[in-house]
């Protein structure tokens, strides 16, 4: 009996070490997202749906503001997108949005423009993951 317990405990210990050594998921960290919503999966789905819709129009606004050379609008939208990305535990997207936010704040529109395709790419990757991992939860 004791042996069994010891074995189990060792196994649990091992799993823990493996989990910790894994690199944190930069595209989408499902665990951290659900944990922050106190595992409310209905809410998670609702947020993701709204997020995907809203971010798409935000990215659109950023693109337009870049071509119209409107750093103020780029800054505001990038800031907003950064917050939304953080809310859904999408670290990679959050980092890119933050870089655009900083670039537009300092008026470096060339840098902001150079980052936008990366941002779109990242958003597409995220969208795929979110659709697979959240929108299909039963």
């Amino acid at each position, binding site marked *: 009996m004791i042996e069994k317990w010891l074995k189990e405990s060792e196994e649990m210990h091992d799993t823990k070490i493996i989990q910790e050594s894994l690199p944190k998921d930069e595209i989408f960290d499902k665990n951290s997202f659900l944990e*922050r*919503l*106190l595992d*409310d999966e209905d*809410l998670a789905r*609702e*947020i993701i749906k*709204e*997020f995907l819709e*809203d971010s798409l129009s935000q990215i659109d606004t950023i693109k337009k503001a870049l071509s119209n050379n409107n750093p103020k609008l780029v800054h*505001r939208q990038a*800031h*907003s997108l*950064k*917050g*939304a990305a*953080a*809310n*859904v*535990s999408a670290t990679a997207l959050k980092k890119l949005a*933050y870089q655009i936010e900083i670039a537009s704040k300092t008026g470096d529109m060339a840098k902001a423009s150079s980052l936008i395709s990366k941002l779109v790419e990242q958003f597409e990757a995220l969208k795929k993951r979110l659709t697979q991992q959240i929108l299909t939860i039963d």
Partner: protein
Amino acid sequence: MRILIAEDDVTSRLILENMLTKWGYDVVAATDGGDAWKKLQEEDAPKLAILDWMMPGMEGIEICRRIRENSKKEDQYTYVTLLTAKESKENIVTGMDAGADDYITKPFDMHELRVRVRAGQRIVQLQSELLEAKKNLELLSRTDPLTGVLNRRAILSHIENELSRAKRNSSHISISMLDLDHFKKINDTFGHLAGDAVLRESTNRVEEAIRTYDTIGRFGGEEFIVVLPGAKQTDALTVAERIRRKINEKIADVDGVSIPFTISQGLATCNGKSTVDGLIAKADEALYRAKEKGRNCVVHADVQE
């Protein structure tokens, strides 16, 4: 408890709305600063507000400033929590300086959000208890505990206010100095508790006899002052006579014991140019004459008998 959340980002708004509702709060949501400010000015507005720092229309910090400016005028307190991205934590000083009580960084940690909202709720409750107590104390400081009418200080300040109003509007003001006849005898015969009951009975009857905008206050002992704004000499005499008749209507019944009582009144009228002391002195002198005349009567200072 009602909470206002002002947040333009849909994900943050959804999270806040859902979580706060789940925890039993009544959520009022605004999607931009202007809307939030409008909702905070409504009657019975939420006393706890969670405001995003960066919002279109009006930023959270600006709303914060306006709330604090407003609460100086009005007797109320709104507890404000600012929402800010983790990267802009250095802005916290500016935010708290503008009048925010607390801040939460995004993305939210639900456990932190919950305890911070709870802390805010505690402050809001303490504040409302404090304001309630203050209001009660103010009322108590103006009220005569025995009869429930204005006390000496309050009725004197009321006369002062009404005098300046009469002066401003070039209108008249009258007062009646009212004294229970042979009150010492009532106390000696029926006891002090019965005397107290007669004082209460008197003020009740005076209140029934006066006009809605007239005020009675206890000047001291068995002496009362009735303030009659806008009343000229004849109006004052009419009201005073109505008071006298109301008192004479029936004998006081104190726990089954019948106690007869009457009052004397001295009236004075002015057009706002008199002082409080001057007006009272005139009414007092008229009251003295009413007592001389045999009590249970009304004498006006400006009427020679």
